[in-house]
C-alpha cells in the first residue's frame, strides 16, 4: 500500500483508498466519492440513524467476527482501516434477490417515504446476525437509534419478528479470513499536511505520539468529535486514534477492580459494568443507541466531560478512578476530582486517559442510577442521578449521590449526602435530603428542562429511589408492561 492509503472490505470487496482528509466521514466517502447513495444523511450527528451501516471486525475472542451498526455520518473514514463495511447496497444476493430483512420489510409494508429505510435495514440486519429471533423489547432496543417519521414503527417491528424465517448465505469464517488478510502489521500514519492521522497499535507508541503532538485531538469512537466536524466545521489538527491501541481496548477484572481501557466501546464496557452493578441496567438501556454505543467509548464520555454525560454519576458514586498517563508515567485520580469546571478537567498537556478503574461491587451496597429526559430512548438527560447506599440496620452507614444536568459538570451532591449519612433511612431524612439538594445545585434553564423543574425532578428521583428501597414501587414506567 502507498502511504496515506487505508484498506478495508466494502460489501465483499477489498478496496484501498488514499486519504487526503482524515475527517472525511464514511458517509461522505460512500455518497460523494463512490456514489453509493443508498446510505442517507438525516442529521449528520448520529441521532436519526438514516446513515446506519454495519462494521464487521474480528471479535474479542480472536476467532469469530462480530457485526455492529455505526452511524456513518460521524465516523471518520480512516477508522475503517482493516475492517469490513456493509452498506444497504451489499445485502442483496448474487441473483439480486432481496435479503430476508429487506423482503420482510417489503412484505410488512415497513417503508413509506423510504428515506429512513436503509438505516432500518442495517439495524435489522445486525439484529438478524446477532439475535435472529428477538423479542419486542429487544427489537425496540435494537432500533432505538433509528427514527422513522412515517410508519409509527408497527410494521417495522412486524418485519423484525418475521425476518428470521429465511436464512442468508453468511459465512463467518470467510469474513474472518479476509479480515486477517487485510490486517495491518504496522502502525497506520497518514500525512495530510495540517491534519495528520495516526492509529498506533500499542500504548507506548500512543504515548510517544501524544508527547510529540500534545495539541493533537485524541479520537476514540468519534460520536462527539464527529460533530465538531460535521456541525461546527472545526479543524482538528493532528488526530491520534485510540481505537487500535491494544491496551486501551481491554476489559479486565482484577481482585478489586474492573479495569476498562479508555477505548473500550460502550457496547463492550456496559455488560462488564452491569455484571457488577445490575442497578444501572435501565440507565444504560436508555443511554444513547446501539450504533452510538458500538462506536462511542466509556473513556470518551468521561474525557469529554459533558455536564450531561450519563455514565459519570454512576461511576462517581461507586468510586471509580481514572488512570492518567503521560509518557511512561501514570497517576490515578478519583473521578470526582477530575472535573474543575465546564469542559475543564485535570488533564495536563500531553496527558491522556488510559483506563478507568471501577471498584467491584460490595455485598450489602445498593447502587442505582436514574435518567430523566423527554423521551425514553436515545435522548440526552435533562437530569441524571446515581446513588450508592449502605445501610446499617435502618441507619445510613454511607450514602453517595451524584448528578448530571444540574451544574457545569457532573457533581456529587455533598450537602444531600451529609444530610443522609448517619441518619435513619426514612421519609423524613429523604425530605431533609431534598431540601439539601436545593442547596447543592443551582441548575439552569435550557431546551431540555427549566431550572425549577430540574430541581423538582432530582428531588423526586431521590424520593423514588427511597421508595424503591422500601419495595413500594416495583417498576418504572420505562419497564412497565414490557
Amino acid at each position, binding site marked *: 500500500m502507498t502511504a496515506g492509503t487505508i484498506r478495508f472490505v466494502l460489501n465483499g470487496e477489498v478496496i484501498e483508498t488514499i486519504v487526503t482528509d482524515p475527517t472525511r466521514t464514511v458517509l461522505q466517502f460512500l455518497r460523494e466519492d463512490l456514489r453509493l447513495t443508498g446510505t*442517507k444523511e438525516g442529521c449528520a450527528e448520529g441521532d436519526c440513524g438514516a446513515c446506519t451501516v454495519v462494521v464487521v471486525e474480528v471479535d474479542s475472542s480472536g476467532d469469530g467476527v462480530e457485526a455492529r451498526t455505526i452511524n456513518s455520518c460521524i465516523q471518520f473514514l480512516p477508522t475503517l482501516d482493516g475492517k469490513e463495511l456493509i452498506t444497504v447496497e451489499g445485502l442483496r444476493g448474487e441473483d439480486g434477490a432481496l435479503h430476508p430483512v429487506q423482503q420482510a420489510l417489503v412484505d410488512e409494508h415497513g417503508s413509506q417515504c423510504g428515506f429512513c429505510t436503509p438505516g432500518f435495514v442495517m439495524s435489522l440486519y445486525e439484529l438478524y446476525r446477532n439475535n435472529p429471533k428477538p423479542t419486542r423489547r429487544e427489537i425496540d432496543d435494537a432500533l432505538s437509534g433509528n427514527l422513522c417519521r412515517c410508519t409509527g414503527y408497527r410494521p417495522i417491528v412486524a418485519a423484525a419478528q418475521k425476518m428470521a424465517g429465511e436464512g442468508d448465505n453468511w459465512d463467518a469464517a470467510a469474513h474472518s479470513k479476509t479480515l486477517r488478510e487485510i490486517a495491518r502489521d504496522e502502525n497506520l500514519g497518514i500525512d495530510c499536511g495540517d491534519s495528520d492521522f495516526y492509529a498506533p497499535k500499542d500504548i507506548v507508541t500512543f504515548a510517544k505520539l501524544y508527547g510529540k503532538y500534545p495539541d493533537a485531538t485524541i479520537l476514540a469512537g468519534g460520536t462527539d468529535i464527529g460533530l465538531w466536524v460535521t456541525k461546527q466545521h472545526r479543524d482538528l489538527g493532528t488526530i491520534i486514534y485510540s481505537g487500535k491501541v491494544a491496551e486501551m481496548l481491554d476489559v479486565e477484572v482484577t481482585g478489586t477492580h474492573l479495569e476498562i481501557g479508555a477505548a473500550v466501546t460502550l457496547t463492550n464496557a456496559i455488560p462488564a459494568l452491569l455484571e457488577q452493578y445490575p442497578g444501572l441496567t435501565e440507565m444504560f438501556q436508555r443511554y444513547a443507541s446501539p450504533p452510538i454505543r458500538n462506536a462511542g467509548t466509556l473513556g470518551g464520555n468521561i474525557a469529554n466531560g459533558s455536564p450531561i454525560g450519563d455514565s459519570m454519576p454512576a461511576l462517581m458514586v461507586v468510586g471509580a478512578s481514572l488512570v492518567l498517563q503521560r509518557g511512561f508515567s501514570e497517576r490515578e485520580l478519583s473521578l470526582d476530582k477530575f472535573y474543575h469546571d465546564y469542559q475543564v478537567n485535570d488533564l495536563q498537556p500531553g496527558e491522556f486517559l488510559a483506563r478507568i478503574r471501577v471498584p467491584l461491587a460490595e455485598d450489602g451496597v445498593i447502587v442505582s442510577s436514574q435518567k430523566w429526559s423527554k423521551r425514553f430512548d436515545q435522548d440526552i438527560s435533562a437530569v441524571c442521578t446515581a446513588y450508592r447506599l449502605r445501610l446499617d440496620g435502618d441507619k445510613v452507614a454511607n450514602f453517595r449521590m451524584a448528578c448530571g444536568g444540574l451544574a457545569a459538570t457532573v457533581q456529587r451532591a455533598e450537602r444531600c449526602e451529609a444530610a443522609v449519612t448517619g441518619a435513619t433511612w426514612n421519609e423524613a431524612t429523604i425530605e431533609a435530603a431534598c431540601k439539601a439538594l436545593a442547596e447543592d445545585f443551582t441548575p439552569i434553564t435550557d431546551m431540555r428542562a427549566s431550572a425549577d423543574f430540574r430541581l423538582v425532578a432530582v428531588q423526586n428521583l431521590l424520593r423514588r429511589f427511597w421508595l424503591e428501597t422500601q419495595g413500594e414501587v416495583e417498576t418504572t414506567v420505562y419497564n412497565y408492561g414490557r
Partner: protein
Amino acid sequence: MDARAVGRPLPHDSAHLHVSGQAAYTDDLPEPRDLLHLAVGMSTIAHGRIRDVDLSAVLAAEGVVDVCTSVDIPGENNYGCIVKDDPVFAGDVVQYVGQPVFAVAAMSVDAARKAARKADIACDELEAIFDPLTAVEKGSFVLPSETLVRGEPDTALEQSPYRKQDRLYVGGQDHFYLEGHVAMALPQEDGGMLVYSSTQHPDEVQAIIAHATCRDAKDIVVICRRIGGAFGGKESQASLIATIAAIAADKTGRPCKLRLDRDDDMVMTGKRHDFVIDYDVGFDDTGRILGIDFEFAARCGMSADLSGPISDRAMFHCDNAYFLENVRILSHRCKTNTVSNTAFRGFGGPQGMFAIEHVIEDIARTLGKDPLEVRRRNFYGEDERNVTHYHQVVAENYAETLFDRLLESSDYAKRRAEIREFNASNRVLRRGIAITPVKFGISFTNTMLNQAGALVHLYKDGTVMLNHGGTEMGQGLYIKVAQIVADELGVTIDKVRTTAADTSKVPNASATAASSGSDMNGKAAQKAAAKIRKRLTAFAAHKYGISEAEVDFRSNKVYIAERIVDFPELVCEAWAARLSLSAAGYYRTPKINYDRSTFSGRPFFYYAWGAAVTEVIVDTLTGEHRILRVDILHDCGDSLNPAIDLGQVEGGYVQGVGWLTTEELWWNDRGELGTHAPSTYKIPTCSDLAPDFRVELTRDHANTEKTIYRSKAVGEPPFMLALSAFHALRDALATEDRPLPDLRAPATPESILRALQEDPNE
C-alpha cells in the same frame, strides 16, 4: 391473476427500492460535472435593520465561486405563496433568527458550509415579539383577525346553568421529515431552467422561480420523483430552497444544489403553529354545550405563508364531531419574530380539535361524568343538530357508530373501572384512559385548488406510463393511482409505471396536500385511462362487429364477445389503425362552494371519521409516561389499498402522539430555537409505540359521495386520533383534589410535573 388491483393491499410501488437503497431522492441524482453546492447564511438576530452585509471573507474562503444576496435576484424577492411578504433573501430587515440573508456557491458542500459562517452581517436590532399573546396585545398580525358567529353565543352563555373559562396552550411541531430540504437547479438552453426539488408543490416552485428569475412558466421545468417525507413541510417551504438554487444557477450559469443541513433546516423553515386558546363555555347538567366562545391566537411567525387557511381550518374544526349551536370564534393570526409557520398534517384542524376536546373533557370533569358521556351528548345529530357552524350539513353521525364498536372491542368500561382501582391503590404510578373521535373535512377550503390533472400513455406493447400532478412523499399515492389505472385499462399492476411529478407533463397542479392526493389525482388518472379504454372499446367493437358492451379488459386480455385477445395485440392493431393511445384526464371536486367572506357554504366534499381509545401510565414522581394500549377504528370508505391506508392511520396516530407528548419546540429569550436537531427535538422512537396497538379500518362504510371507488382520504384525519393519548394522560393525572389537571401540550415529563405541582418548591 384475475383480481382487480383496487382494494388490494399491494406494497408501496417503491418498497423494493427503499429497502435496497435504490430509490433515488433529489440528493441521490447524478451530479453534473460543473455542479456548485450552496449553503445559506442566516440572520443571527430576531429583528433588525441590516446596515451592512460584508461577504468578503466568504468570497475569499477556499473553494468559493460566488455569493448571492437580495440584490442578485433579477425579479421578485419573494416566495410567499398567498401574501408577498416572504423574501427569499432578507433585504432591509431581518425578521427571525435563521432567515436567509445570502447564499454561497462553492465547489463542495463542506466548502460552502464553512464559508457561509464567515459573513459579517451588521444590523441595528429592533424590538422583537416572540409569543402570540404579546402579538395580540400589540396588534401584531400577519393577516386581519377573523370572526365566525353562529346563533346567539352571548345570550346562550348568559343563560347557561354552568359556565367555565380557561386558557389552553398547545405547542407547535417540527415536521422532521427524514430527508431535509433539497433542490438542484440546472440552467438549460435558451433561458430554460430544470429544477429537481423535494416539494409537495412543483407548480408553485415553478411559478416562484419564474417570478424571481424573470422567466415565464414555460421556461421552468420542476421535477420530483419522490420526497423523503414532507407532512406539509414541503408545501410552501420547498420554494425557498428551490428558488435559492435557481437564483444561484441563474447568476453563475452553472447547476447549483442546495441541501440544507438538518440544523439549518429546522432553524430556517416553518413548523406547525402553536396556539393559545381561550374559551368560555356554557353547558347544562347533562354536559350539553349551550354556548361557546373561542379566541385563538396562532403564532404565525414573520409572514403570512399559509397561516390564513390554516387558521381558517382551525376555526372549521373546533367543532370536531360536536354540534355547536351558539358559537363565536375569534381567530388571530399573530405576527412574531420567529420562523414563519406553515402547513403540517391537519393544517390547523388539530389545534381546533384540541380546543373542543379539551372543553368537552373540562365539562365532564366539572360535572363528575365520564367524558365519554359528554362526547356522546354533544355529537352531531342525523336529522337535527346536523349543521356545522359554517352551514355545511353533516350527512351522518358516524362517530356514534365508531364509538359503539370501539367501546366494545376495546373493553373500555371494564378497563376504565380497573384503572380506577389501580389508581386507588398506587402511590406513584397512575393510569388513565380516553376515547376521542375525529371528524375531518376533506377538500382544500380554497375551492379553486380542488382540481387535478393526469396524463396516461399507452404503448404498443400494452404497457402504461402514468403521470399526474400528485407528488409521492411516502403516503403511497403512486401505487394507489396506479391501481386505479391498471383496473381501468384491464392490465396488471406491473404494466403501469408512474413517472415523476413534472410540471412539463401535467400543468398547474395543486399541492399534494389536504389529504386530497388520491381523491383528485385518482379521478383524473381514471378519466385519462377511461378515454383510452373507450377508444379501444369502440375500435374492438367495430373491428369484430359486436356491441361495445361485449368488450371487456381484464388482466392484460381483451374479452371480445367469445374471443380473448392479448391486450398488446389489440393495442398494436389500434395503433396501426391510427388511434391516439395517449390521453389527459382532468377532475374537479364537485358540489363544493364556499364564501370565505361569510365563512359559510360547503367547503368540504365529505368528512372522514375515526375514533381511538388510548390507555397510558404515568409516573407522578418523574412525569414520564408510557402508552400501554391503543385501539383505533378509522374510516377510509372503501379503501383503495388497505395496507397503505393502515400505514397512514398508524403513522398519523404516532406522529400525533409526538406532537402532544415528546416533541417540544423551545426558543430562548433571543428568539433562537434551541431544539434544532434530533439530539434536542424528540420525535417518537420504536419503544414509544404502544406494546398493544390495535388498528382497524372500517370495512362497511363506503363513501356516500362519488369519490374514486367510494374511498376516503386518509392522509391527515388519523393524526388527530392522538388526542385520545393527551386526554388519557389528563385522566391519569386527575384526582378528586385536582379534577381538571392543567396540562399543557406537549405533555413532556416537565409539563406533567407542572400539572401535578402548580407551584414548584413550595
